């Protein structure tokens, strides 16, 4: 009896000692497939770090953005690791809201991160967020419909070719739309696509003195081309379509072409969810011969807020989740095609990955073709390919997105939409003190 009591006492004391030592970190994230997969694989991390427990807070993207912004701005300290994008990183790093990630361990190999992605997540040469997965945008097209149309998709098509192919592929009687593009209003929805597209038309949001440029002919060409293309060859109700809606249309065989995030490649080529999985080809985002393509650059990344009390544990977790080891772990459990894309050079040099992911080379080329510091033909005072990395952009981008979405829906003309966009941008820039 005494021995039993003693053993129980010792066990309890050990448990208490362990509990006192154990550190719990809270990670805020989005419900994307790669993020969900990470949550199922964390045993690998907790086994190696038994003194760290992980708490997940998964939220819808816009809610997550609002929650983490509130928390970080008020130093609420609710999160130890945050999932944020390339838009937030430069702004928050400049506000000293994020910790620099320079202590991720000797074997982390930060130089292996794709230069374009690392550039988007760094300020003054310091990395402030580690990319979990990165993406650009490109053309996904139906090879069978392209053959039927008697055309061959070049590796680097022009917008004129896209228009020609869309016209030929459109078959309303059979429910096939030549092209599916984003139309749903939002700075991260239609404006991500349209801003990237406008770069290839030589347009820009602001000139070097922050004067809005929606009154310039380049924007008129961009928006007119987009509206005309979608009216002739796009799906019905396109002004309500975002990534998910177009994904559903493409997977159901209702789009000849879809220009969107490279991360969609693994979804449209998955026979479990896509009816056209074996018929998909890939090409770089279109251009207009001006030296810039209409592709964007984005990375969902893990950052550590400056207010955390658990820096060491948070750094250990970020290092694990964005390491080469993690990619190998995913590959060993789910195959190389499921490895998080768009972050590390070594992944694209891996022959097994290239074999498992036929879209690998095109994804890499698309990412490398994006330059956040020189996004368009003319010089700009901002950073960002499909966004402008200033705090005012979330609100302004969504306002302009609503105006352009209305033009697509036929509720206003292209000229009216551009005029209103110019007025809205001028008011926002004046209020923000960028211009007088």
């Amino acid at each position, binding site marked *: 009896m005494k021995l039993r009591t003693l053993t129980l006492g010792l066990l309890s004391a050990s448990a208490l000692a362990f509990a006192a030592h154990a550190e719990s970190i*809270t990670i*805020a994230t*989005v*419900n*994307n*497939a790669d993020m*969900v997969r990470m*949550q199922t694989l964390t045993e690998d991390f907790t086994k190696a770090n038994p003194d760290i427990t992980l*708490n*997940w*807070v*998964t*939220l*819808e*993207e816009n*809610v997550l953005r*609002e*929650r983490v912004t*509130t*928390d970080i*701005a*008020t*130093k*609420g*300290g*609710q*999160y130890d690791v945050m999932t944020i994008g390339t838009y937030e990183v430069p702004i928050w790093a400049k506000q000293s809201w994020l910790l620099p990630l320079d202590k991720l361990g000797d074997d982390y190999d930060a130089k292996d991160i794709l230069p374009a992605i690392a550039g988007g997540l760094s300020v003054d040469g310091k990395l402030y967020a580690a990319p979990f997965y990165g993406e650009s945008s490109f053309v996904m097209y139906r090879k069978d419909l392209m053959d039927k149309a008697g055309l061959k998709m070049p590796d680097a098509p022009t917008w004129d070719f896209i228009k020609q192919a869309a016209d030929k592929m459109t078959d309303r009687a059979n429910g096939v739309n030549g092209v599916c593009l984003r139309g749903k209003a939002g700075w*991260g929805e239609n404006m991500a696509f349209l801003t990237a597209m406008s770069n290839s038309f030589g347009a820009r949001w602001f000139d070097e003195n922050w004067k809005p440029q929606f009154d310039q002919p380049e924007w008129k060409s961009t928006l007119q081309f987009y509206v005309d293309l979608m009216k002739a060859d796009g799906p019905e109700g396109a002004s309500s379509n*975002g*990534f*998910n809606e177009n*994904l*559903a249309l493409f*997977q*159901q065989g209702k789009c000849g072409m879809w220009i969107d*995030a490279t*991360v*969609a490649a693994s*979804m449209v080529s998955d026979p*479990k*969810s896509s009816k056209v999985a074996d018929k998909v080809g890939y090409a770089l985002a279109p251009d207009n011969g001006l030296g810039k393509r209409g592709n964007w650059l984005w990375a969902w990344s893990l950052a550590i807020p400056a207010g955390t009390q658990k820096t060491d544990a948070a750094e250990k977790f970020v290092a694990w989740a964005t390491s080469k080891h993690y990619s190998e772990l995913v590959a060993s459990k789910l195959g190389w095609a499921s490895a998080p894309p768009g972050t590390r050079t070594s992944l694209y040099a891996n022959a097994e990955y290239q074999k498992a992911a036929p879209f690998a080379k095109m994804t890499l080329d698309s990412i490398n073709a994006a330059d956040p510091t020189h996004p368009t033909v003319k010089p700009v005072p901002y950073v960002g390919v499909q966004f402008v990395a200033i705090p005012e952009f979330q609100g302004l981008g969504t306002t302009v997105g609503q105006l352009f979405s209305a033009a697509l829906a036929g509720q206003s003309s292209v000229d009216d939409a551009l005029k209103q966009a110019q007025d809205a941008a001028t008011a926002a820039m004046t209020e923000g003190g960028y211009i007088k």
Partner: protein
Amino acid sequence: MARAVTTQHKTIATVAAWIVALLIFFPILYTIITSFKSEQEAIQGFSIIPSGTFESYSEVQAQSGYFKFFFNSVLLSVGSTILALLVAIPAAWSMAFSPTKRTKDILMWMLSTKMMPAVAVLFPIYLIFRDTGLLDSRIGLMIMLMLINLPIVVWMLYTYFREIPGEILEAARMDGASLWNEIVYVLTPMAVPGIASTMLLNIILAWNEAFWTIRLTTTEAAPLTAFISSFSSPQGLFWAKLSAASTLAIAPILIMGWFSQKQLVRGLTFGAVK
């Protein structure tokens, strides 16, 4: 002839009521149907015949752990309702039986707080919660839910109490009842239907509240609203899983509403016809 017309009217009214009820309920019904589909089926367009798979339910449970969120929802909605009643019953009693010339203004002012968009006070509330250590705490959220629903609870109780003849309370006072005894033993038993329906409505409102319950919680106090939010994805089609999560979140309150519908309707129409 008159009877035939009446029967015809009744039939038309019944059919119309069923159509309206089905139209209102259809989004919920379709969510339930979609929850029994595979992800591929869910995106294949409109269909009311699911394959009957439970795959989404098991994945939702494995991914998020439903019961922790459910427990928090029960605790927050019931707890905030009890707190609200504790404050609102004396307040409504005072306004109904000892009104002053400012009573109507106070009632209007209370109601006007509901007209303000919640996001306008997000930062001050967040800072108060941060400084008082109430972020992600059940008690903090219970107080918050109590406060945001308090105007409606006071208004409803005030309306019910006004229907009770003041003479009964006077008689109790004549018999030597103290203020406490008057409220607990005379007023409250007479207002039970009204209190019950107020309670039920407040539970429903607290259960469905999504703005504050998502923004003031992280892991410990997060209720089912946060659970649903976690299944919405900007990049990926998880409609079946989202539907399963929604069904799991609304099922308890739907069942409660179904069984208590008589009390709810009775309470909500209490004193409506005079």
